[in-house]
């Protein structure tokens, strides 16, 4: 009997230990190293207390990166969800079963594409001289359109690619979710002369509240990891207008300075902020 009750522990303990080691060892080391002044080019380093954290708040690039990251989260999560819901409803409302099957496949392609490849393809598509996206503008106005070099449009242009990847994928999920809903509430709403948009706004979407919130969280976490996309398309430029926190931390750690303690300080702050913010939002919106 005892051996039977112990069985789950025996099976679970090793993987949990491995997972714990993988998760906590680097985290603990990042916290430890953030209190030191370790640089890649020097093996030594000393304890500096909170100096890295204090320096961060007077660093204009850090303050800028916080703003860029927040904008990025807000824009990509909101747009992805809006695109997903709108396209999902349109497919559900107007597409036949065969059309849905084909479009579902098409909509899945962008997200299957590796991020770096997608970023290169779009970077080229947005090129002011040879890009297919900017070509019509150039043909009509005679002027090149350089969206990625313009501080006002660069972040939004990269966000567009993110939304293209995830918005279409989520649209498929929304469609599948709509297909699982029972038809009775829809019929009842129609009997009450509800217009189609009212049916979706007041009947279908409230019924999908829980999965939509989950999708929002998934996208929020995913958006935090947009490093590859931004790195390939703009490298944080022009200037620092698309430099997110993870990009700046990587720059400080490896590209420019080798200041890994300083970069770890940023990573620790990011981790704390993310944990706190996600916990608060989760508790508030929990369905």
């Amino acid at each position, binding site marked *: 009997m005892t051996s039977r009750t112990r069985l789950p522990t025996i099976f679970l303990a090793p993987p949990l230990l491995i997972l714990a080691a993988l998760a906590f060892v680097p985290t603990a080391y990042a916290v430890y190293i953030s209190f030191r*002044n370790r*640089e*890649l*080019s*020097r093996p030594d380093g000393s304890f500096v207390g909170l100096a890295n954290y204090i320096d961060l708040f007077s660093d204009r*690039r850090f303050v800028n990166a916080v703003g860029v990251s927040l904008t990025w989260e807000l824009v990509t999560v909101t747009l992805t969800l809006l695109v997903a819901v709108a396209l999902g409803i349109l497919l559900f409302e107007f597409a036949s079963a065969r059309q849905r099957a084909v479009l579902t496949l098409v909509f899945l392609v962008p997200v299957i594409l590796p991020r770096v490849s997608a970023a290169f393809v779009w970077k080229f598509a947005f*090129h*002011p*001289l*040879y890009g297919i996206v900017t070509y019509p503008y150039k043909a009509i106005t*005679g*002027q*090149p359109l*350089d969206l*990625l*070099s*313009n*501080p006002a449009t660069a972040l939004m242009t990269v966000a567009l690619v993110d939304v293209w990847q995830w918005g279409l994928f989520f649209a498929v999920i929304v469609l599948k979710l709509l297909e699982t809903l029972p038809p009775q509430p829809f019929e009842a709403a129609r009997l009450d002369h509800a217009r189609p948009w009212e049916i979706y706004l007041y009947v279908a979407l409230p019924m999908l509240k829980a999965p939509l919130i989950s999708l929002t969280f998934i996208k929020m976490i995913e958006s935090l990891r947009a490093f590859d996309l931004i790195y390939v398309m*703009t*490298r*944080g*430029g*022009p*200037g*620092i*207008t698309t430099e997110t926190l993870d990009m700046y931390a*990587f720059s400080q750690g*490896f*590209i*420019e*300075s*080798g200041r890994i303690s300083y970069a770890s300080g940023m990573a620790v702050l990011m981790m704390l902020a993310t944990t706190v913010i996600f916990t608060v939002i989760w508790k508030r919106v929990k369905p």
Partner: protein
Amino acid sequence: MTSVKTLVSSIAYACLLASSVSSVVLAAECSGTIRVLAQPRDGLTLLENYKDEFAKLSGGASFEIDYLNENDRRAKTKADASTIGKYNVYYIDEANVALFASAGWIAPLMDYYPAEYDYADFDPGRQKVATYDGKAWFAPLTGGGDLLVYRKDLLEAAGIKPPTTLDEMKDAVKKLHQPDKGIYGIALRGQRGSGANVWRWMPYFKGFGGEWFDGNEPKFNSEAAVKATETYLELFKYSAPGTQTGGWDESVGAFTSGQVAMLVESTPLVGMAIDPKSSQVAGKVGYLPPPTPLTGGGYGHGLAIGTKANADEASKACAGLFIAWATSKENEQRRLEANQFSELNRTSIMTSETFAKLYGPDLGQALADTGKVTAVNFWQSPLWPDLGDRWGIILEELIAGSRTDIKDGLAELEGFAKDLVARSQ
């Protein structure tokens, strides 16, 4: 006489024995795979066709090259060398040789470079940038200075003489700039980075008399830097679209696709511009040394021996043998035959008859002339990449227009430089 003969023959036998013993030792030690982290180079791709030759030479060793583009290669080599040290050979360059050497991430090359491969045959400019603290650290794969490369047809049509001074170049750029016809006056580099926008800005800075440091005291916040930046920004008004956040690829791509009238770029551009396979303007290209007072940006990239992955002397020797073979006269001759102009570094190759036959006397002359104005424009210090990259960001902000005050930017860089020097001490 007999005794002399005996002596000579015994010395010869001894030498033969010694060499066969050393090759046996080498054969025994050079097994496995030599891992190389590099950036894409035609010369290295060509080298991969001769793996068997290296296996025979080394006694069974092979090599594997991982490629990353320039900025990523810099970041990854730094990360690898300072942590796990997976790579036996690093592709490094003039900008980070000081950092790699002073941090002990690479070994002095000449300690492991077989003498018969003749290091002294490399172009003296390239040897100079490969040297730090009196020692050579890498064997060059590419390098050179700058050339003003222009479209002969466009200049002739507009009746403009090829510019030899900066003022003449500015005038020519303005006159030739016709965006409605798809021709842009110039192509500059806007992308952040000590090897990107800063690299192209430095000839103006040094040309106007700018200096980076006097000892540990920053000197760059000067009239020369302001004037250099103003000139660079003024010229950027005529730079091809896409170059505002672009680097070498964007500038060169715009020129070779026929959309740029002239540009001052690193010498390998010529090889690409005159090759019909990579250029739509082949046959219409002229070249001159950079206009006065611009200095040429002397540079060199090459292969160095990593210290972490090569923990013992034998593995360092194997890495040294690989580097020597990869940059040998034989392999360079193959690159010349494959028309890989930018991959040539040896004096014996560049003064060869084949070279003259392939590229004509004009290019040889232009290269010789530009050699006279080629200089080390950057600050030769392990701290240089850090400082250069920071200025790259400020410069990119100025180019993109998200910042407008040049003096304020330089003051910010000065503060950063003082902090950097203080931290390093």
